[in-house]
């Protein structure tokens, strides 16, 4: 084999390795595989008083299993509520009296939507919304409430 041919082969190997690395990065490291899920799933929305630190792409979980992701968050200007649109994978069916709540994983971890499945025979369909929702717990509010309780108790003792 002459020199030029060897160089051509080596360059071909190099380009293949580079593109292969890029492909592996896309498939193994990033969330590219979820793009196909997003197209297949169906969309549900829920109105919350307060979503805390919930973000687009936060997970939606049922019994701790991830069944979808938050795809959009916007404000309803009339009721001043946050409308969270989520994308649920098509193999999961939710009864139409299910409850959507915002929980935090761990004490300071990221926030996610937890679904408590209801018992209704009817299922939620694309475009439906959750009737019952529970807002995020805001730590400052909890601490504030706790402090108010404490001061009321100590006040009544003194009397």
């Amino acid at each position, binding site marked *: 084999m002459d020199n*030029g041919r060897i*160089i*051509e082969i*080596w*360059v071909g*190997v*190099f*380009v293949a*390795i*580079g*593109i292969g*690395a*890029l492909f*592996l*990065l*896309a498939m*193994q*490291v*990033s*969330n*590219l*595989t979820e*793009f196909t899920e997003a197209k297949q799933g169906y969309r549900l929305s829920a109105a919350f008083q307060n979503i805390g630190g919930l973000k687009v*792409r936060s*997970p939606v979980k049922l019994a701790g299993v991830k069944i979808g992701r938050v795809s959009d968050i916007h404000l309803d200007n009339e009721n001043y509520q946050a409308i969270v649109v989520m994308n649920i994978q098509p193999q999961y069916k939710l009864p139409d009296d299910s409850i959507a709540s915002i929980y935090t994983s761990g004490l300071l971890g990221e926030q996610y939507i937890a679904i408590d499945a209801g018992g209704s025979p009817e299922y939620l369909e694309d475009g439906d919304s959750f009737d019952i929702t529970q807002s995020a717990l805001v730590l400052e509010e909890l601490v504030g409430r706790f402090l108010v309780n404490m001061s009321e108790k100590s006040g009544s003792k003194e009397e």
Partner: protein
Amino acid sequence: MLNVLWRLGAFSLGAFAKLGRANLFLLQALAGSAEIIVRPGLLIRQLYMVGVLSILLISLSGFFVGMVLGLQGYNVLSDFGAEESLGVMVAASLVRELGPVVTALLFSGRAGSALTAEIGLMKATEQLSGMEMMAVDPMRRIITPRLYAGILAMPLLSALFTYIGIQGGYLVGVPLLGVDEGSFWSQMQATIDFREDIVNGVIKSMVFGVIVTWIAVFEGYDCVPTSEGVSRATTHSVVYSAFAVLGSDFVLTALMFGE
């Protein structure tokens, strides 16, 4: 006093003249792009010189950088009981910053300096003027293929560096230090976004490829054609590349990741 002013003026005029020459040079080199299609052999040979011969350096460096990241990240994260986030830390820092930047710095040391020295020596031994005498445009024949080879090779090398780095971090984190394998990969996949992180990393490395090769080729073409001039041009090529890469990295990061 007047002498100082005179020198300052001469220095800044010289700097602007060099910047202008560099931009005209880039335009001239890009104007010869058709040569790449007419003679793909030139490009392939240069891809071999700058790309294939850098694979070993890039892979080994990536592997060790990834291992160090895994080790250091574990030490800090375990203080907070967040060892599971090791995968995110290693992958995010490699994909967003270290992959493109360290590859560009290594690339300028490995391939950029060689390009400068090669072209500088061609100029010093009057090969470039010899080509002009034979009615061969050295711009198209020498400069354009080298420029394109650098621009094409950088993203590929950077992807290789990043991938091997993540595998290095995995090797230290999971089998050696006992981080849970499932959360290592799943947290990484949950955090690293394809468009936001990986595509931006590739864009970064392409920009760095243009910067590093442009500086290298220009410094060689613009050097004083003596042995001392070639050695100074080679030093300048590496030093300016490092400055330009790190400076433009800040700008690119601010544009891409600063909300």
